[in-house]
């Protein structure tokens, strides 16, 4: 694990990168990294995230600036700008049921090829997908997702990179922290090693590549 400035962390990310971004309606999204992506003008990004938040918040800031060419997400209903760009052909949007999206990410991080889920069977979600029967019940094969970078927001990080999360800001973060080739973390508080008790560490330190310095 390396500690870096937010400028240097974002400088690692090339145009056209695939990014997993933690957060649920921008709660638990690493806003400082998003702001720096906007400042450095990283473009043609593929974003894998629960939602695209709202204009002016979280991932919505990337959408506002036209930096996202594709979004893999479960919900865009609260971001009219995403819908406008999708309908105008400026952004591709792959809509994925929320429980399927998180499991595809988990599969990616856990070394699985994908998962079998009953969600979406018999609906337009099953189009183009393999369907299998197990013990008389139908499931869709949903393939694993990985990303070039996972952008994670934690509540506490220690100097080794162990992470814990707070309340509903946890959401997609710990799952995504396992599914990026490179994991970049911002934390509300960076604390001495040992301060997060072993039982309270949610993301183990070896998963974290870069911890963005505070202050």
């Amino acid at each position, binding site marked *: 694990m390396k500690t870096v400035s937010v400028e240097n962390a974002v400088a690692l990310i090339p145009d056209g990168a695939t990014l997993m971004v933690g957060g*649920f*309606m*921008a*709660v*638990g999204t690493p806003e400082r990294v998003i702001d720096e992506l906007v400042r450095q003008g990283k473009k043609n990004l593929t974003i894998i995230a*629960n*939602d695209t*938040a*709202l204009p002016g918040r979280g991932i919505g800031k990337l959408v506002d600036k036209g930096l996202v060419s594709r979004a893999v*997400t*479960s*919900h*865009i*209903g*609260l971001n009219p700008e995403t*819908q406008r760009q*999708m*309908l105008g052909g400026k952004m591709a*949007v792959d*809509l994925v*049921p*929320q*429980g*399927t999206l*998180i*499991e595809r990410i*988990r599969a990616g991080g856990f070394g699985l090829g994908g998962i079998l*889920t*009953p*969600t*979406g*069977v*018999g*609906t*337009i*979600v099953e189009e183009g997908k393999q369907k299998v029967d197990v013990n008389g019940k139908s499931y869709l094969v949903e393939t694993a997702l990985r990303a070039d970078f996972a952008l994670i927001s934690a*509540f506490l990080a220690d100097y080794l990179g162990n992470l814990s*999360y*707070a*309340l*509903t*800001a*946890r*959401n*997609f*973060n*710990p*799952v995504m922290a396992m599914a990026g080739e490179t994991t970049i973390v911002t934390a509300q508080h960076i604390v001495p090693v040992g301060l997060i008790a072993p039982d309270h560490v*949610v993301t183990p330190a070896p998963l974290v590549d870069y911890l963005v310095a505070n202050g």
Partner: protein
Amino acid sequence: MTMDAQTIIAKRVARELRSGMLVNLGIGIPTMVANYIPSDVRVFFQSENGLIGTGAIPEEGMANPLLTDAGGKPVTALPGACTFDSATSFGLIRGGHVDVTVLGALQVDAKGQLANWMIPGKMVPGMGGAMDLVTGAKRVIIAMQHTAKGKPKIVKKCGLPLTSVRPIDLLVTELAVIAFPDGRATLMETGPGVTAEQVVSATEAELVLPAKIPEMQL
């Protein structure tokens, strides 16, 4: 005093909940259900962004930015609440651990199938957690107004994309309570001051009419 449609629906749905149940409420009328649960009934409310034990909206100035509902709005956590990641949250949902989900709808059809997530070419918000909830919850209750601008929402067959092939269990509107025994829409109760004939005329789907159809208790 006459009650508005949304209040009738929310009050009637609230009567379906029992102490100890794990319950997920969708946005809109379903959210209002929480306001009408009797004080001796203690249910666990799940918010799919990772919380069981969702409490009331915080007083002004008391919101915690890291504690929100699935719409990103501030909530509180009751004593005994717990938080978890999204994989666990949807494991609860898909795994059949949620006793009841209450959702809104665009259309419900004669067999109880549901469309509630998109109008092609017009409204494409994404399905969010709806498909998982309808597929995995033990009981699916739809809370919606009976018609939309005079047009029936309870139709012969859903024309809009389905949320799941799994039929819903109960439909509550301001005019009726409808269940789907043997895969057929059946009028179980009528709304306050509403006749079965009025329900039938506001419903496109064919309704089975039992000999006795009581009025909703609220």
